[in-house]
């Protein structure tokens, strides 16, 4: 194992927790705001409100896997362990939101489409995206050498992130049960406001989750390096 500068293993100063509470409070506000200010939809009534959780969850899933892509490429390029830990943190948070997107989509699909699930290209490709990143996380827990783990997971992370544009375009490339992306002109302004606010709130939450997870990962690695240094004879007590 090649020795790295000690500074990169030093744990970061934790970000103050009140920032998280502030983010969470903003999320609660945007949820209530969106639900209270939007009238029932002409076609699906109040089921339209699923939009305020399903759509932002899908958006932050894509964004988080985008972070995995960039961090993985950076790791392969610069061999900086911190990039690997950031990729892993983003993959964890992205997988969580991807699972949430699927579940919320099923809850929305049952009353509107009439089914929980159908094997159309959008649903299938989203499930595949989810499974790839569950595989990514499983892979990480099985490879013990940090450097090899970083390289393997970077490869899988990049491969997985390539699926994001496939999921996005699936509704345009293939016939699907899922409707194509809505655009601002197809939404009443009272829906659009609530949706954009919630996209912002979900994005902030995701940044917060990824960052906190990254800080924890840095602390873990710092502790591992310290115990390794001790085992290698730095101390005898």
């Amino acid at each position: 194992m090649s020795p790295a500068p000690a500074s990169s293993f030093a744990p970061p100063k934790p970000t103050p927790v009140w920032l998280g509470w502030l983010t969470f409070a903003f999320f609660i506000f945007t949820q209530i705001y969106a639900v209270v200010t939007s009238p029932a939809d002409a076609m699906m009534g109040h089921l339209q409100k699923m939009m305020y959780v399903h759509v932002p969850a899908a958006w932050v899933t894509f964004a988080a896997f985008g972070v995995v892509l960039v961090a993985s490429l950076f790791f392969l390029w610069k061999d900086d362990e911190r990039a690997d830990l950031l990729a892993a943190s983003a993959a964890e948070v992205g997988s969580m939101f991807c699972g949430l997107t699927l579940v919320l989509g099923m809850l929305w699909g049952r009353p509107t489409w009439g089914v929980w699930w159908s094997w159309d290209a959008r649903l299938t490709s989203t499930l595949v995206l989810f499974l790839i990143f569950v595989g990514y996380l499983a892979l990480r827990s099985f490879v013990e050498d940090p450097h090899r783990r970083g390289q393997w997971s970077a490869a899988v992370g990049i491969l997985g992130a390539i699926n994001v544009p496939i999921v996005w375009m699936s509704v345009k490339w293939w016939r699907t049960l899922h409707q194509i992306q809505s655009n601002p002109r197809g939404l009443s302004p009272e829906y659009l406001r609530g949706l954009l606010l919630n996209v912002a709130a979900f994005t902030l939450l995701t940044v917060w989750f990824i960052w906190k997870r990254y800080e924890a990962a840095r602390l873990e690695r710092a502790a591992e390096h310290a115990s390794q240094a001790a085992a290698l004879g730095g101390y005898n007590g």
Partner: protein
Amino acid sequence: MTSKRTKWGALAAVGILVVAFGWLIYGGLDSNVVYFLQPKELLAKGAEGYDKPVRLGGQVKPGSVVWDDKALDLRFTVTDGTGEVAVHSKGAPPQMFKDGQGVVVEGRYGRDGVFKSTSLMVKHSNEYKAPTEGERPAEMYKSLMKSTGT
């Protein structure tokens, strides 16, 4: 120290990924390239199209819905503007089912020219609008589901 466990674990993880990718490319997407046939495509198959499990997608032809609320028996026509296929379905349709609505039905096209549906799905648009004055979505469904009983 745990190299055996590690090796098998890593292999299993890679295996899952390969299967997931293979499924995406060969299974999932290939069979879903045509997720549903339009009426004109089903009709163009002629005798080939009979008695095979297939999905049919299109619009509910306005005025074609006949609903028997005692027998939970639903008949309507699916159209793509060119071709039309009569559909027979059992059970109450989803709430958003109505004249002109996009639908996807799973089932078999019978030799009697009637598509026997085992699953009826609503395909809605990507637009969301507040109802205009006097429009009551839920009532529209109710009135449709009452008035056509035989």
